[in-house]
């Protein structure tokens, strides 16, 4: 009888402890692994709070400097909670950025008394127009009107998956495939667009 045991994937707590242990023993590869593991998530949650992709990237960079420094100094009390630690530092860095900006605007306000312009800049407006054009291209590449309706109803109207599955008579697995395909196609268009602009987005 085959007694081989499948290697079990470490839990998040175990992976976190291992990484922290290696960083404490000055393993530079562990720091790179930590960033590779958590960076995409960190940027996504910073974008969620700032709605500014460039700012999110900047804050993520600063966050990693602080995280690495603190972990090296042994300031992470529970090594099983590295993810929560990173999230907290990321949120603090963003908060500090906003406080600093608000304070410098107050100082400028005393000198120049200029109210802040809250309208879109022409660059932002142009970027939004380009984004809308990408969706037109995405929709043009979709052979079924149903798929376009699913995207808009799910992401814009906020209708529930089961409701849409019933209406369009498709399974939930099929529904997920429609979303996943659309996302992949959109990502490709987005990347082509950024390449055309030579990645000059920030």
């Amino acid at each position, binding site marked *: 009888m085959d007694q081989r045991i499948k290697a079990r994937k470490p839990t*998040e707590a175990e*992976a*976190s402890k291992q990484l922290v242990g290696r960083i404490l023993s000055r393993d530079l590869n562990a720091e790179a692994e930590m960033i*590779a*593991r*958590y*960076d*995409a*998530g*960190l*940027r*996504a*949650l910073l*974008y*969620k709070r700032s709605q500014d992709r460039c700012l999110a990237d900047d804050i993520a960079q600063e966050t990693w400097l602080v995280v690495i420094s603190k972990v090296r100094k042994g300031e992470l009390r529970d090594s099983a909670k590295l*993810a*929560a630690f*990173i*999230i907290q530092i990321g949120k603090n860095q963003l908060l500090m950025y906003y406080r600093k900006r608000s304070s410098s605007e107050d100082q400028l306000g005393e000198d*120049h008394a*200029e*109210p802040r*312009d*809250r*309208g*879109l800049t*022409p*660059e932002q*407006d*142009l970027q*939004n*127009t380009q*984004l*809308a054009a*990408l*969706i*037109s291209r995405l929709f043009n590449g979709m052979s079924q009107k149903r798929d376009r309706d699913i*995207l*808009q109803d*799910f*992401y*814009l109207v*906020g209708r*529930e*998956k089961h409701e849409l599955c019933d209406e369009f008579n498709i399974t*939930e697995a099929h*529904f*997920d495939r429609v*979303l996943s395909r*659309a*996302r*992949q196609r*959109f*990502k490709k268009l*987005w990347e082509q667009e950024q390449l055309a602009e030579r990645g000059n987005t920030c």
Partner: protein
Amino acid sequence: MTTFDKDIETAVRDYVLNRMTEEQEASFEEFFLSKPDVAEMVTDTQNLVLALEQHRELRRSTSEESVSMPFPWLGSALGLIARPVPASVFASLALLVALGSFTSFSGFEKGPETFEIASFSTQLVRGAQRAAIIRPSDFSGDLGILIRVPEVKFQSYEVQLISEADGAVVWTSKPFVPSSARDALVIAPRSKISQQLNLNVFGLDVAGNRVQVQFCHYRERC
């Protein structure tokens, strides 16, 4: 398996659309932080939703414009973008589209076909602001000027082009109301701009009196 794994598409959608409670959001962030594939899904969905929203907004504004668009030429300019056009024309049109949120006005009944953006340098002369228009070197079209007023104080505004040689008023815009963003796009016809020109901006008070106001380029503080 967590509750999020059961329906990851809905969890990601709810996170991106702010449909989670604070506790759910915190728990979902901790969940996806250690899962680069889910984090990537979140990022891709954030981009997709942003683009879908912009697409919806553009369609809305386009359909409103077709009913009561104050600048009918904007519609034809938008239509041109789908066709190959010379780079300089495209640049003007792209900027024109970008300026959708600006208060725009011009001296045209139908509007210009294309225009080029000019900047201006300002100085104080005997306490009054004087702005000399700097045209693009290969200037040949109508003149687009982007201005910003420090604060919207008047009911409406006017822009004047003044001949530097003799101080005569060459062109006066129709009165316009700036948007809350304080920015305005002025488009003057090419027939009026064959000489060196200065620029003046006036606020019109309730009695219709003109008051000269300070202004700056839309990228500057003033």
